[in-house]
């Protein structure tokens, strides 16, 4: 700890901080622009100027930038000194000379850091009387709006986009007052993390284009704490609504998970919620027995038919649990293919019974040597890729720290490090984007990667003779053995149980040799882990087999599009054979048109529930708004059916049932306050105290203000009434603090800047490593089931996820479905690079245009996962039949 003095008051702060960080952590208001808790200091904007003094006898002091000043023992500054205040106000005045007077029409207005800092600095009257400089804006694609005239040149965008996220198609151009941030030419931003520019930019240069289409001011939004449903990482988000439409998604800081950032799938993938294909009403195919759908379904349940349930990795734990309650454990099937079910169960198995810890997403950044086996993390779990891009800086950064360069001195560190990265080793079937920062790569089919993995394991365990320096396995084993904190990254992307085990075996060997090793698995969907923990009687294939054998079955299908998960032929048989099909889902899809009954389910925006992410972290998401239609949380529909009630029982009751029955979920009770929680006597408002229009927004229907909806399921209220201080960390519906209207107000919710939220970061880990656990899992011999070519999925951040790929902005980013082959393969089948290729196996025939990818081994073919024309396809498969045209 260091003793510092701020305006002659003594404070103790942790060592190694800079004074801006220290001041903000102490809750003081000191304006800044270029500094960011994750991007650290560069001293560009000069806004955090304070007076610094040599000692208590120094009465003159000098202007110093707090962000570039060490908070050492005896550091003495003044924030309040008039000279410093005048400088800060003058600096804002200077920044504002070219900033347009367009706050009223600017999307950032009301949550603009520049507005906040301007007010904080005290500057109000502009003396500049000359013309403002103007810029030409660029079309940066469907996600980000560009308005360069508003730029105050804080350089955060380029530091985030290029230095932090590894982007290469964005930069800073020109000099002096003409400095320009953008691309060298107009075009879509290529980084998977471009959306963070919206939050990183302190003003309205980069704004959310999807929000712009249905724009609402921050203070007019109804928001709730939520969990991203885009992949298995469970990034914390804030989602916001007005007039029944979700307007946007923003980052909800969670220091253990996603921190300050989100990927573009997560941020812009929400728009399907507003889609016209949403199921909003109860529906049934046959109205001859009356039009009361829910009574009909209740009657079916009451008649005690033979039931099966098909559950879903995109549905909440509670919904899946209630389905299990309804149909019984033996009849409860996971709505995913057998292979996927097996692989996810395998991940759960090795994490539960293995000896190695799976770190949180945030912890990934702390590992110093990484081996990625089989997983294209940039496309399956993008935020892991972002974390790995930070982790590869750890070893090189040590060089800078050895020169006594402070951890916060970002530009100086980068100067010492230059382009050095790693060590990061990547073994995947095809070249992934991680190779931009990797040390060495290997491409192979499943068995080649397994062999390499096993070799690495053997090297670690047995040592072994020195191999050629270019021997991949030897290099990897060597680096992992030398590492202080190695990390193995793998996942379900190759749909191989053996890959999952092999990764764990490498980690286990390192653990046995005393390393502080971690293992991270990406799993396919938001609640894949939760469903695996809940336990199912089998996969969708088992369910289909069952229905084809016993024809009098009533099938409850929870949040699953059968056609997305299985072949059309199988699904059609299934639907034909089952007696009744009751679908509980949120969107119209191929399956819903065959349903006998449809119960409209809430998406993440209209439901409350718990999700378990890839590390086994249970996290709560809350309903954002009460829609004015039939939509309910899936668990609520199921509860009505089970208990034959008029209304569903409360969320807490359902949750209580679940945790009392399933011991491994017991801790979930501590995840978040229950619905009875009050601060004083008040609930936590989803709306800011500035929310406007409430008395008039329904005036076209009635001039009487309607009774606001009540939330029986959470401690949150749907209105602006309630406690306006800081809520418990799991229940933060928006970030705001007096004087801090922008996302920068997150500072005020943290114990220290960048540190955990007050009350601890939310989420409860349900899986901890087993110290007496296994360090080795036997690997079955990988048996090729015929065919020369191995067909594997190519994962795509935009497209390889069912719901987000229905969002308008995402749709524009989905690439055309193509079959990837190497040019050798292309030649050997006599196909043309501009032609088409047909791939057949016993159930499918897929014909797609060619994409030549020479990183592929010659006998490996890729098909894009989940894209149009591919859904229902099972990976991996082997085939001899590929025909080129």
């Amino acid at each position: 700890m260091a003793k510092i003095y701020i305006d002659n008051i003594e404070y103790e702060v942790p060592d190694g901080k800079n004074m801006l960080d220290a001041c903000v952590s102490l809750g003081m208001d000191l304006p800044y622009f270029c500094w960011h808790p994750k991007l650290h200091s560069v001293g560009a904007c000069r806004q955090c100027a304070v007076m610094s003094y040599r000692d208590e006898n120094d009465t003159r002091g000098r202007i110093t930038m707090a962000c570039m000043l060490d908070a050492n023992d005896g550091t003495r500054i003044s924030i309040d000194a008039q000279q410093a205040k005048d400088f800060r106000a003058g600096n804002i005045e200077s920044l504002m000379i070219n900033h347009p007077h367009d706050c009223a029409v600017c999307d950032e207005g009301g949550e603009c850091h520049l507005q906040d800092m301007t007010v904080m600095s005290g500057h109000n009257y502009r003396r500049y009387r000359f013309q403002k400089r103007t810029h030409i804006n660029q079309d940066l694609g469907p996600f980000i709006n560009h308005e360069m005239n508003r730029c105050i040149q804080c350089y955060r965008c380029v530091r985030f986009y290029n230095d932090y996220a590894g982007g290469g198609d964005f930069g800073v151009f020109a000099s002096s007052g003409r400095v320009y941030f953008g691309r060298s030419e107009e075009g879509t931003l290529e980084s998977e993390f471009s959306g963070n520019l919206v939050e990183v930019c302190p003003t309205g240069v980069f704004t959310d284009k999807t929000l712009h289409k249905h724009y609402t001011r921050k203070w007019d939004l109804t928001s709730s704490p939520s969990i991203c449903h885009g992949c298995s990482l469970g990034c914390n988000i804030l989602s916001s609504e007005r007039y029944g439409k979700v307007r946007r998604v923003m980052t909800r800081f969670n220091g253990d998970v996603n921190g300050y950032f989100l990927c573009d799938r997560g941020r812009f993938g929400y728009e399907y919620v507003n889609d016209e294909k949403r199921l909003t009403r109860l529906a049934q195919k046959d109205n001859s027995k009356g039009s009361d759908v829910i009574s009909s379904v209740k009657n079916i349940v009451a008649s005690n038919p033979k039931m099966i349930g098909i559950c879903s990795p995109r549905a909440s734990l509670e919904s899946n649990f209630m389905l299990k309650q309804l149909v019984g454990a033996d009849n409860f099937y996971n709505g995913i293919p057998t292979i996927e079910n097996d692989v996810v169960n395998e991940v759960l198995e090795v994490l539960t019974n293995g000896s190695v810890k799976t770190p949180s997403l945030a912890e990934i950044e702390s590992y110093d040597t990484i081996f990625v086996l089989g997983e294209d993390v940039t496309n399956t779990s993008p935020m892991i890729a972002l974390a790995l891009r930070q982790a590869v800086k750890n070893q090189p950064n040590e060089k800078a720290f050895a020169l006594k360069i402070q951890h916060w001195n970002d530009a100086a560190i980068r100067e010492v490090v230059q382009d050095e990265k790693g060590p990061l080793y990547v073994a995947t079937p095809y070249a992934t984007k991680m190779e931009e920062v990797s040390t060495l790569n290997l491409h192979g089919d499943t068995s080649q990667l397994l062999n390499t993995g096993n070799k690495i394991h053997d090297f670690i365990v047995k040592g072994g003779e020195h191999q050629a320096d270019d021997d991949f396995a030897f290099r990897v084993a060597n680096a992992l053995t030398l590492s202080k904190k190695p990390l193995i990254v793998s996942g379900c992307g190759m749909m191989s149980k053996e890959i999952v085990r092999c990764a764990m075996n490498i980690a286990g060997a390192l653990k046995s040799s005393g390393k502080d090793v971690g293992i991270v698995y990406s799993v396919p969907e938001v609640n894949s882990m939760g469903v695996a923990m809940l336990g199912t009687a089998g996969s969708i294939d088992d369910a289909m087999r069952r229905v084809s054998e016993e024809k009098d079955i009533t099938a409850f299908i929870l949040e699953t599009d059968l056609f997305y998960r299985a072949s059309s032929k199988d699904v059609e048989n299934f639907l034909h054979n089952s007696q009744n099909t009751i679908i509980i889902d949120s969107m119209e899809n191929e399956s819903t048109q065959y349903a006998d009954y449809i119960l409209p389910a809430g998406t993440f925006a209209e439901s409350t529930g718990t999700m378990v992410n890839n590390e086994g972290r249970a996290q709560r998401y809350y309903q954002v708004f009460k829609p004015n239609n039939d939509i309910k949380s899936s668990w609520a529909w199921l509860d009505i059916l089970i208990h034959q009630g008029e209304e569903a029982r409360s969320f807490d009751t359902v949750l209580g049932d679940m945790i009392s029955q399933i011991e491994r979920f017991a801790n979930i009770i501590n995840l978040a306050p229950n619905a009875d929680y009050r601060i004083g006597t008040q609930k936590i408002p989803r709306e800011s105290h500035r929310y406007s229009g409430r008395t008039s927004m329904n005036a076209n229907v009635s001039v009487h203000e309607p009774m606001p909806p009540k939330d029986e399921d959470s401690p949150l209220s749907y209105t602006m009434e309630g406690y306006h201080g800081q809520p418990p960390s799991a229940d933060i519906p928006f970030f705001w603090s007096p004087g801090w209207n922008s996302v920068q107000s997150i500072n005020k919710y943290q114990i220290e800047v960048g540190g955990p939220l007050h009350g601890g970061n939310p989420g409860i880990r349900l899986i901890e490593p087993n110290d007496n656990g296994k360090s080795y899992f036997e690997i079955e011999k990988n048996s090729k089931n015929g065919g020369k070519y191995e067909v594997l999925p190519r994962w795509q951040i935009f497209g390889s996820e069912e719901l987000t790929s229905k969002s308008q902005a995402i749709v524009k980013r989905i690439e055309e479905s193509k079959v990837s082959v190497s040019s050798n393969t292309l030649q050997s089948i006599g196909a043309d690079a501009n032609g088409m290729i047909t791939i057949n196996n016993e159930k499918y025939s897929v014909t797609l245009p060619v994409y030549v990818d020479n990183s592929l081994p010659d006998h490996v073919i890729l098909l894009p996962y989940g894209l149009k024309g591919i859904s229902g396809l099972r990976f991996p498969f082997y085939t001899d039949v590929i025909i080129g045209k």
Partner: protein
Amino acid sequence: MDRPLTEHIKNDGSPLSLKEYEATGGYEGLRKALKLTPAEVLNVVKESKLRGRGGAGFPTAMKWSFVPMGDNAPPVKYLVANGDEMEPGTFKDRLLIECNPHQLIEGMIISAYTIGASMSYIFLRWAYHLAAKRVLEALDEAYKAGYLGKNILGSGYSLDMDLHTSVGRYICGEETALLNALEGKRANPRNKPPFPQVSGLFGKPTIVNNIETYCNIPHILAKGPEWYVSISKSEGGGGTKLYGASGKVKRPAIWELPLGTTLGEIIEEHAGGMQDGYKLRGLLPGGASTDFLTPEHYNIKMDFEEVAKAGSRMGTGTIIVMDDKTCPVGMCLNLEQFFAQESCGWCTPCREGLPWTAKILLALEEGRGTPEDIDHLIHHTHYMAPGNTFCALAPGAMEPLQSALKYFREDFEEHIHTHRCKYHH
């Protein structure tokens, strides 16, 4: 009077070939240096009281002493010559490079030997095409003669040297911006610490010195530090200095004179005084980024201490003379427009403040000035004071303005009140 740096420069302006340079005693300093240890060479330079000639006057030996030496020092170190010379009114390095490139090269080799550098670069201003050509020819000669490359003169010491021509930004003269430019990055300055001696070019220990500084080194080694101290008239440092004068003087030129020659002597004797019909109104003693001095300051010695006491800086020692028929506001406008254009755009005061300052001055010159403008200009001189900005560009830019407001305030006021510039006809 000793003129070690320029005495052998030929009248026709052609460069000294290697042979000619050797005939004047060239590369003797290097031979001597290679017989000493780097620590001994450092000590010689320290005793010579050589101070950096780029403008700041930092003691050269002290700068070098911060470079990590010994077995644990990083294996790669760099030495860079700052030949960016874009300071308005300054053209001394050009003379040295164009007319005696081997002197520079020898100085750099000795300096590189002292800090244990293995690679060195001459960073040259974009516009110096002739100098670039002559440096390349000289480098070629030096390599062939064994002064550069592996095992220099059998000493076991190896050094490579290369020329890098800038693409033409004033900020590249700032040593850390120069390093970024040399790395192929945007020429933004870096924060110090870490200093380049610890983390410089490509993050390795690096010394950057001005061309003129290096040119002194061979002579210090060849003739000894005592001699070097003896040829100076200044208490604060040894050696001679290249002084220059431009403007309406009779003989605008560059002269090598003892460090500490008085301002009056330079203007009246060497430059021959003002042209007929012109009176001296003020002068910038060391390039555009120094404060105005006036004829009252004729008696001060042009060295780092006395000019500072008079409220300015010796800077590069190349004087810009302002006569009584030139508008001080117009001169400030010209300078501030230059500085505004050359701001790298990194920090706020410089990026926003300089263009604003230039716009105010333009308004004054065009008769659109308002009474508040003088306060606004004064505000800017405070706003861009040293320490407030990221590097020294903007504070330097404020030096002529703040002193013009002090010495020629009536001109500013007259512009505002008469809505015209009386110097324009």
